[in-house]
């Protein structure tokens, strides 16, 4: 297996290099320094093109592929936010769906239930409201012991849902209907139109389906996917900038040893609250986009189970590593859609996966480089200890 992979890599490397070289002028124009960047650009463009390429094997035959991609996108966004809370700051939040719901409900309330705000105005409001809810929840609870925090946050998720159900102003049990799509940017026919591909016997043909760029309709989820993908990329950039700074280090130090962090001058409570608020904000962002895409939200859209699935995504991928969290989210959201026949089993499978992963591969499927080294070191220490016991 490894042979095949390394063989492939050897054969693909020159091709990639050539592509890289070819793209170098583009990179130079954009101020990029290395060949790596154009390669990444190609990768990103490929992801943007996914919903119109309808690639065989990964395409979902039984449900709208762009819709599935959008769902995967929301999970990825949520996982990125939750990764800050769980992975970086080490706070186990089991009520993350609460923030997701707050974001969705904010959009629902101001664009449909009690106002006609355009989505792009409602979105920043949703961010502010979720961030505020994060601070409101975090300020009293982040002082309690870590394992209690898990239960308290879980309670928060449930309270949000029950309050929404019992409050007529929020639409009550019926929820909020006809949440508008985002307004089109440019003409209604789209800036331009892109045809989709379909595949037969391994050959692509151009389909008569088209996606209108920047036209947000009900039928075609592709523009929504592009919107959320763009958001994800922005969030990743922000994540990288923050992680690689005093803030990121303070989070990590707090997670590793809160007392020592405090003694080394880290105001740990402030940074935990910041992580909580940022996580909340990103969760709310995902919820807001979900609301405008589906157009209809009600309390059962935000079950506790969703919180636990989000946690599963982050942990399965490898908490603390943003790429791991993203892959975890893709696994949790995409696999059940792709293999619909097994969709019923997904909670069972993820439950088993959680136990197995934390027991045997504590650092998740895709740990960061550092975590790998930590695991290695721990293993060696354990070996030494076991050896000592025998002696």
């Amino acid at each position, binding site marked *: 297996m490894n042979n095949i992979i390394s063989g492939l890599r050897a054969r693909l490397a020159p091709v990639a290099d050539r592509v890289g070289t070819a793209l170098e002028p583009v990179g130079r124009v954009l101020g990029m320094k290395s060949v790596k960047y154009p390669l990444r650009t190609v990768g990103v463009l490929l992801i943007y093109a996914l919903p119109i390429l309808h690639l065989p094997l990964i395409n979902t035959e039984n449900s709208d592929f762009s819709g599935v991609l959008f769902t995967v996108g929301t999970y990825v966004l949520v996982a990125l936010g939750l990764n800050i809370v769980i992975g970086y700051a080490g706070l186990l939040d089991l009520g993350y769906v609460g923030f997701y719901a707050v974001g969705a409900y904010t959009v629902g309330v101001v664009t449909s239930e009690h106002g006609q705000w355009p989505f792009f105005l409602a979105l920043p409001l949703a961010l502010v409201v979720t961030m505020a809810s994060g601070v409101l929840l975090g300020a009293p609870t982040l002082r309690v012991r870590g394992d209690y925090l898990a239960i308290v946050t879980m309670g928060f998720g449930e309270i949000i849902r029950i309050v929404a159900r019992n409050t007529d102003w929020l639409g009550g049990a019926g929820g909020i209907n006809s949440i508008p799509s985002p307004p089109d940017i440019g003409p209604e026919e789209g800036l331009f139109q892109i045809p989709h591909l379909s595949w037969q016997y391994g050959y692509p043909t151009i389909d008569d389906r088209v996606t209108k760029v920047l036209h947000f309709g009900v039928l075609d989820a592709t523009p929504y996917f592009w919107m959320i993908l763009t958001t994800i990329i922005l969030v990743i950039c922000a994540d990288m900038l923050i992680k690689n*700074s005093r*803030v990121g*280090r303070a989070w990590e130090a707090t997670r*590793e*040893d809160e007392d020592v*962090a405090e003694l080394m*001058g880290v105001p740990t409570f402030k940074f935990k609250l*910041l992580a909580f608020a940022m996580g909340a904000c990103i969760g709310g962002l995902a919820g807001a986009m979900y609301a405008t895409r589906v157009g209809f939200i009600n309390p059962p859209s935000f079950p506790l189970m969703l919180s636990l699935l989000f946690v599963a995504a982050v942990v399965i991928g490898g908490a603390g590593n943003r790429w791991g969290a993203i892959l975890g989210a893709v696994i949790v959201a995409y696999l059940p859609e792709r293999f619909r026949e097994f969709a019923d089993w997904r909670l069972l499978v993820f439950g088993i996966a959680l136990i197995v992963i934390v027991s045997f591969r504590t650092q998740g499927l895709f740990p960061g480089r550092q*975590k790998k080294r*930590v695991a290695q070191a721990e293993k060696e220490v354990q070996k030494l200890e076991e050896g000592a016991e025998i002696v």
Partner: protein
Amino acid sequence: MSESEDILLELEAVTIKFGGVVALDDVSMTIKKGEILGLIGPNGAGKTTCFNVITGVYAATSGTISLDGKSLAKRKRYQITKLGIARTFQNIRLFPSMSALDNVLVGADVHSKVGLLRALFRTPYFRRVEPENKRRAVELLELVGVGAQPDEISVNLSYGDQRRLEIARALATNPKLICLDEPAAGFNPAEKLRLMDLIRQIRDLGFTVLVVEHDMKLVMGVCDRIVVLEFGRKIAEGTPSEIQKNPAVIAAYLGTEEADDDAA
């Protein structure tokens, strides 16, 4: 310069009680700027308690502690660090899965005002302070002798390197007073000699040093002045040679000195 301007840290009649147990009883002492002060005493004498009250881990039941004339009472632990007191730990407590450099950087971040927005927008302040801190962190790693592997995660470092990394992390906060909690624990004689050099070097860089240590040779060899505690009280204070001749100290250590030498 008058006498009082020389004083960096002042403990005045500090008492600490845990329930009914008096851990520190009316202890007064001063640390002068630029000196190396040793804090010694038999086991259970209250050295660690004294150390913890200075660094803000415990609050004093009564009495005052002030650094440069500013009272430490009612300050949070991180504020005390920011004010200028940093410490190491008897049982090593690094951030295990962070790199050596990042460990030191956490210390260096104390005086940084980088927050969410500055990090997000890479403001001029950020671009000035973060590289500056990094440069200082690298220098400190070299000073303590861990410069060769800045990117190694700290659990992977050797025991001695971990101990020295803790010193670098504490120095990175740019403290007025650095408190070393048994820095030589587990060191062999050669490492102890190097540690003594390092402590002197740190003092020569302008830091004031407080050392709690069991190893008498190290304490006598490196300290300018020594304070002796027994049963939570201060029983003696003076230069190493004075302390060695002090009858109260000899009495306190009688019987335990041998054990200490064995341990060392």
